[in-house]
């Protein structure tokens, strides 16, 4: 269940949730190319969004992943679009599965 389609579906659900907190002109698109960066989301929204993605991954894919760790104050966020976030999740899920 950690194929990219399932992961994207979980991300889109999290986008629906975070959009409830955003003004109309700031809402995120349900699109692989939609940006996920400091211009699109302030720090509080970014945390809320990533925790929403975590929750949806757990619910939809049974995948436990800590995206909070990607928000290191000293390093750049390792993804800038929805597609890159999905890739980051896939890679981390594979690493978690590795022996």
């Amino acid at each position, binding site marked *: 269940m950690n194929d990219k389609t399932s992961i994207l579906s979980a991300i889109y659900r999290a986008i629906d949730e975070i959009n*409830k*907190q*955003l*003004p109309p002109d700031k809402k995120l698109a349900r699109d692989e190319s939609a940006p996920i960066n400091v211009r699109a989301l302030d720090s*509080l929204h970014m945390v*809320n969004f990533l925790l929403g993605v975590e929750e949806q991954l757990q619910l939809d894919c049974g995948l436990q992943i800590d995206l909070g760790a990607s928000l290191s104050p000293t390093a750049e966020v390792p993804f800038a679009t929805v597609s890159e976030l999905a890739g980051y999740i896939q890679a981390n899920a594979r690493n978690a599965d590795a022996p």
Partner: protein
Amino acid sequence: MKSFHGLCRSSFNPATFVQLLNHDGDLPVVQAEAGEYGQWFVPAAAGPAADGKPLDFLVVWTLPEHISPAFNRLLRFEPATLEACLQDVDDFCQAILKMSGPAPLIFLPLWVVPSYHRGLGVLDLSREHGVRRVLADMNARLCRNFSGSTNVFPLNAARWIESSGKRAFQPKLWYMTKNPFGNDVYIEALRDIKAALAGSIGKSRKLLVLDLDDTLWGEVVGEVGWQGIRLGGHDYIGEAFQDFQRSLKALKNRGVLLAIASKNDERVALEAIQRHPEMILKLEDFVGWRINWNDKAANIVDLVRTLNLGLDSVVFIDDNEFERQRVRNAVPEIFVPDWPADKTQYAATLMGLRCFETLQLSAEDAARTAMYQQENERARARLEHGSMEEWLAAAGFTVTVTPLEEVDLARVVQLINKTNQMNLSTRRLTEPELKQWQENTGAAIWSLRVADRYGDSGLVGVVSVMADTEDPEAARIVDFLLSCRVFGRKIEDVMLHLAVEWARSRQKTKVLATCVPTEKNGVCLDFWKSSGCECRGNDNTFSWETQKAHALPAHIQFQENVPAAAVR
């Protein structure tokens, strides 16, 4: 609908809640600001918000361990007494009272601890220092401290937590953002708060129109006869319908009017209501019905018109999606909730509706259905008399006028906030605001009670008049409002008479009234146009020269009360 300006003060980070509140698509529109994290009580800044606009409401949402040092000790199983916890609650309530001046409405979500916190486990409720036992006492103390308050409202946060399930508390959110709750909790909270705000300006619904077959009972009565409908008995569906009727009766007892719109043979349907032994609702619980084969939307509009209500005060419940959609499309003002196919969900769905929210409950609310039934009797009697004047004379009207008394304050404010049609200014005020306004302006405020041989309509009218601020020779009517139940009986002339007499006693040469037009108060403008007053200028200002008295209608017996405790 008015938009509301609010502020959320919190002992945790309220930003997520405030953003959800601001961007929620349902009415009313809310623009709220988040107070600084942890700064739940900042008296100097509790007044107008940063942009200088006055606040309509304040939410003070705190965690119990942040408010009560004693409770915080108790959470760590350190020594603490219940008395110390309750003293902390009293201190908190005192602080809230100090904040209540600038913000007309204050909402206080009750305190909760996370579901995963088991306190003393099995002993938690049986031991004096059990976490939930003490918390229940603290919440009860808070509610008692604001019992009967007209502007501070404790809210049941435990219900929001229950309906949010496992998503209610999210430790990671707390550690990363100092926000203890998941979004579902906030969404439930904001819906309750928005319903209360809508209720505060009279936007609560007053009339619930019901279908019959598969709505009030199971099966089609025209097919199976009243003996064959599913209602009560040893049948889970029958029990569900009976419970739904109990919930409807509870709403009626709260002051919501019930009516019927059903495609049926009227005789067959009424027979079912009158003869089925398990019917909870009786015919006298309904203020009217349209049971025929005509279009339901047209039937409801006709019914609502005869009750003198606005279409936006109506809710329509029907099990049939086609009928729901038809009414939604034809009359968008009517609220038609989605309705579950599962009959066992009917009562729960009804009880979950937020559209009947009011901030005051009065004796008139409880008696509302009886009053409408008296009105039906009047209408029948009216047909028996030749002219309107004959009927008015035969009905024996008594209007009792009382300067505003403390005991009537809640009902007067309720009328000010709910009356839309016969309402000169359509201004909305809380009790403290009305008292403050009267104190500042020296205005006279009267309440009017109307009775006749058919019954007592209760307190149904309010007039206020003050010295005009621009013309020293003039008095100005500010509030002029009358319940739709008593339109057309010349009570309006009694109200104008009161204002004119007040002006004459103060040597004012004229009485002015400006009708502020809204979508709904056309009937008020019509009254003033036909009142004998002179219409001045283009702003619907009317003037009565006080050298001439304004006579009381001959058919009305007029009584003036001298109150024991007028509001001053």
